[in-house]
């Protein structure tokens, strides 16, 4: 069971992290993409902040839905529909359960339905899969988050813009995996995970 307050905190921290690390995310993306991932998410984070400050959510589903729709509208690029689908899918799941692992599993599901990426294709999915698995076993740690991020380095991209680079995408951390790592670190920091 997870409290709505800690999840609001989660999203707030996530917004702060992507904003602080905007240039780093842009740099990762310019190595194997078009260099806008940090700017995209920073724009989205500002819009989410404004949007959620307008309402006093008394249920998780409404909160996630607003986050998701705002991300879809404002982030753009590939990550807009992907993060958006994650939160919209979590909004649906929140109507049935408030188990954090189940919620994030629904989020991962939303991402994969949208982007059709499987494990090992060097996308944000490669950050989400191990994190969701760890959450299910109540074993999510910073190390899990950081390890899966580093593993994207040796992968060859077969989805997203980086896939145009073929073998040349190897040797770089995936920007979407990096922003997802910020998402999950924020989750730990927000105290939303009962260890």
């Amino acid at each position, binding site marked *: 069971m997870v409290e709505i307050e800690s999840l609001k905190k989660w999203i707030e921290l996530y917004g702060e992290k992507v904003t602080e690390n905007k240039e780093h995310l842009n740099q990762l993306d310019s190595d194997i993409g078009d260099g806008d991932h940090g700017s995209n998410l920073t724009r989205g984070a500002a819009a989410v902040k404004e949007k959620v400050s307008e309402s006093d959510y008394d249920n998780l589903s409404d909160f996630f839905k607003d986050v998701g729709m705002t991300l*879809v*509208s404002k982030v*753009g*690029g*590939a990550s807009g529909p992907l993060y*958006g689908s994650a939160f919209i899918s979590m909004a649906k799941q929140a109507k049935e359960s408030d188990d954090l692992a189940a919620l994030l599993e629904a989020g991962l599901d939303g991402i994969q339905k949208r982007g059709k990426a499987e494990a090992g294709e060097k996308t944000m999915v490669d950050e989400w899969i191990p994190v969701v698995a760890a959450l299910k076993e109540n074993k999510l740690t910073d190390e899990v988050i950081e390890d899966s991020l580093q593993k994207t380095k040796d992968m060859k991209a077969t989805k*997203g813009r980086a896939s145009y680079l073929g073998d040349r995408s190897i040797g770089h951390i995936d920007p979407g995996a990096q922003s997802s790592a910020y998402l999950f670190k924020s989750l730990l920091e927000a105290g939303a995970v009962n260890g």
Partner: protein
Amino acid sequence: MTKTGIIISHVYEIAKGINRLIQEVAGDVDIEVIGGLSETEIGTSFDSILEAINKHPSDNLLAFYDLGSAKMNLDMAKELSDKSITIYDVPIVEGAYTAAALLQAGVTQEAIEEQLKEIQIDK
């Protein structure tokens, strides 16, 4: 069938240019093009795709896109719209041109799809 299609590119000029290329061979086909976040900014926007779909006179749309992220935005808009939208994984210029030429000739959607299959690509 209604002669109609929608073309989504990351860049304003590409979308406009494809429209001009198509008009030459398919003057009666009702094409809506969306390019970029604005005339100068590169990207695709879910909001403007959904708006274009909704305001389009036809309920049956054939959709073409350039890069994968345009497709994802298009997919989301498709899910939130009541219209029938078919998204083709074909080269944006060559695919949209082929479909428009066939629509102009009054071909069925099945026949168009038959032909588009030959230029399907992973993207």
